[in-house]
């Protein structure tokens, strides 16, 4: 059973009209779902899952994988063009992607995003194919204790997202954590802050939160300035795109950023439960922290975009690693893929490679091919996407809101999810007015539940002793780094403020 020959077989097996059609249709539909805020990659997979039951197993997985890849990457389109992430994974893409579009460089931003999505995915697929089994063992070493430490570490990065005003950033983070508390508590199921509203028992869903924070806030800030924007000169979009939109020199300058972000994405994909949005944000923050010009992040530079898009696509390959080698699902989509395995009579687990190598290699081939098709489609569609910016915003934004509402409803078939958008919309708008950043809020909202659950589970392992956490080496490392990181950032801010005060008297806004 030579891997190369298995790969060749799978590749040849893919060269038939049905499979190619599924690849193309899957990626296309995935991109549509990914690019429309409110609809996500996991929704696309969930919707087409029953359709695949009747198919042959190879065809089924080809379609599902294509949807997944198209969906995750499609999010960058709306993130860059209208500052609303199409899927949760593309949150960090908004930070630098949209400012680039505002400067008239939308085509370049799209080009960068698409190419690096492709490369990030490719990186993780290569790792998946060649290094998978040994990496999967890493997943097993992580118990609740280690997860808690990782979450704590990720949260400590909020200190970096806080920007200039540490207090406001931390308050934003606290707010996110507080919102994540609403609902039934982990483990003992005690209802917290639900005020008797039964729909709140499961807490706030991530999709309405993102829609509220990004979409509603965007619409409201547009509403504030309609007359002003109407009179302002329309920023000319630079549509003379040469090739991918950026130069070879720029590409090479990103190599370390790329490698680092791809590694972050793959690793987070391997650790079940953390997710693409966290990966994107962590990669972005890391890029900012290790950059020579961190103050430029957020104004529309390539680095931030590269970091975010590379890592969120790398999560795909990473999530497939524990799924295919050990039968452990890494996120919602891979959990559905598990179900697909079962329906086709395949038993996911350590023996999948042995029992059904053809299906496994079909998945590998599908990943690579779908990735390529995604690249071609998005680059080819770039001109059309940028034209979308010509639709007057007063028409485009409301349509997007309707789609978001549909998406919020459809994500769990509850009107309540659509209704909860308002809370986050108003909150985010007010936060914007007092200049409290929303990025820390989102990161802590996503991680809050994980943090508490794993802390309490971890304490069950150590029978109530927190100090025993430090006997777990991996956990100890992450916790210590987290604490040091926050402390260092705080001290740096205090030092900067002290030297800044010596130069100027009044506090700038």
């Amino acid at each position: 059973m030579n891997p190369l020959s298995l790969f060749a077989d799978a590749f040849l097996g893919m060269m038939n009209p049905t499979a190619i059609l599924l690849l193309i249709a899957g990626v296309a539909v995935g991109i549509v779902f990914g690019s429309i805020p409110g609809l996500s990659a996991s929704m696309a997979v969930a919707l087409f899952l029953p359709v695949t039951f009747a198919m042959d197993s190879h065809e089924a997985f080809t379609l599902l994988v294509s949807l997944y890849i198209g969906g995750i990457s499609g999010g960058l389109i709306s993130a860059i063009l209208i500052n609303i992430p199409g899927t949760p994974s593309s949150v960090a893409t908004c930070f630098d992607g949209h400012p680039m579009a505002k400067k008239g460089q939308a085509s370049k931003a799209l080009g960068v995003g698409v190419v690096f999505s492709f490369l990030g995915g490719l990186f993780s697929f290569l790792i998946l194919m060649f290094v998978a089994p040994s990496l999967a063992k890493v997943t097993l070493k992580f118990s609740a204790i280690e997860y808690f430490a990782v979450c704590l570490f990720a949260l400590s990065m909020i200190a970096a997202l806080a920007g200039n005003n540490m207090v406001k950033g931390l308050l934003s983070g606290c707010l996110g954590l507080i919102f994540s508390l609403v609902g039934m508590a982990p483990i003992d199921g005690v209802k917290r802050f639900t005020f008797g509203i039964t729909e709140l028992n499961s807490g706030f869903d991530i999709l309405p939160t993102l829609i509220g924070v990004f979409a509603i806030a965007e619409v409201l800030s547009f509403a504030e300035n309609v007359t002003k924007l109407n009179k302002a000169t329309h920023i000319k979009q630079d549509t003379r795109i040469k090739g991918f939109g950026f130069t070879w020199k720029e590409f090479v300058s990103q190599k370390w950023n790329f490698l680092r972000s791809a590694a972050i994405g793959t690793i987070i994909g391997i650790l079940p439960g953390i997710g693409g949005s966290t990966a994107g944000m962590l990669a972005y923050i890391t890029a900012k922290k290790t950059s020579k010009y961190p103050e430029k992040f957020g104004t529309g530079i390539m680095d931030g975009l590269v970091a975010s898009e590379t890592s969120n696509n790398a999560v795909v390959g990473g999530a497939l690693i524990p799924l295919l080698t050990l039968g452990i699902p890494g996120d919602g989509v891979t959990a559905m893929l598990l179900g697909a395995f079962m329906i086709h009579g395949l038993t996911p687990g350590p023996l999948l490679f042995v029992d059904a190598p053809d299906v496994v290699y079909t998945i590998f081939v599908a990943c690579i091919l779908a990735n390529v098709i995604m690249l071609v489609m998005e680059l080819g569609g770039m001109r059309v996407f940028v034209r979308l910016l010509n639709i007057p915003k007063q028409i485009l934004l409301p349509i997007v809101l309707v789609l978001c509402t549909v998406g919020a409803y459809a994500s769990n078939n509850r009107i309540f999810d659509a209704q909860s958008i308002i809370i986050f919309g108003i909150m985010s708008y007010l936060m914007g007015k007092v200049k409290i950043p929303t990025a820390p809020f989102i990161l802590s909202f996503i991680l809050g539940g994980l943090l508490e659950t794993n802390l309490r589970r971890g304490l069950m392992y150590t029978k109530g002793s927190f100090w025993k956490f430090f006997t777990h080496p991996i956990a100890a490392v992450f916790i210590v780094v987290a604490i040091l990181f926050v402390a260092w950032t705080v001290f740096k801010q205090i030092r900067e403020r002290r030297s800044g005060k010596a130069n100027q008297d009044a506090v700038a806004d």
Partner: protein
Amino acid sequence: MKKKLLALLICAVLIAGALAGCGNSGSPSKTPANTPGSTPASTPGSTPSSTSPGTNTTSWPTGPVSIIVPASAGGGTDLLARVVAEKLTQKLGQSFVVVNVTGAGGSNGISQVHDAKPDGNTILFFHNALLINKVSGISNYSYDGFEVGPHLVSDIATGFYVRSDAPYKTYSELVEYALAHPGEVTMGVEVGGFTYLMVKSFEAATGVQFNMVDVGSNAEKCTALLGGHIDIMPNQYSTAAGYIKSGDFIALGFPAEERSEVYPDVPTAKEQGLDWLYSGYEFGFFFPKGTPKEIQEKFNSTIKGLFDNNEIQQSILDLGNEPVYMSPEEFTEKLKSMEENYTKLMADVQAGR
């Protein structure tokens, strides 16, 4: 601007057409019953009157029916529901659509059906979690908040699993070891759920005390066991199947009366001399209170028909579960005794701590 908008609209319509084409390949019947103005709720014939058996005059279903599954797509419950939904669509001529409503231990989906219009177009498909939610206080009602429908599937293949390198390979060995080392054997459960009560009933039956750790869903339990963070876990055979096959896990046995039809090689706890019985997952349907009797009867007889004609059994067996038909009355009896058991176990837990 107008030209571009037109182009965009044409694109949208084309995409809509394309998606309509490929999305419909799965559902065989798309009757034109969705014309505006003819909502199912206003159909005549669905008045709650009693009919004599054999003369069911209801015209239900006249539109798409939602089968609410309070679990995520691709999971065990979901797959079962989809298998049945397909058969029902064929038999009754209207599309039966599986709708996933997850969250809050299933109570999101449960309460949605509970509060739905009792016109037969919203049906719940779920299992024991319906009872356990009430017992643990998450929900205010149990099966008594619904009209109970027919029972479809039993999954008695839930038992304890250990790694192959564990110092105990049978229940008696486990009990012996655990009694000698109280509170040391780490049992991974989902606190407050099915597996939690299962372990509690085992502890009550044997006097053993485990070190309970919450590890989450059935899939997460497998990961924890594989990684060595827990020593033993309660789980469904179908979830652990891959690892049993690869030799990483051993199934200790099922707490059932008889061996499983699907996994006949696994012994029961009873055979091993352990007086421990615990009902497995019992899947069935539930209607909102007030759903007309005729609709319930039609549904019930359709399901029974599937069993009588042997049309559904194989699909259920393929999913690793046992097809067992029970009439609504029989199912209600079973639910009653299960809930009594859970209530007692939960009361012991609350008193013991």
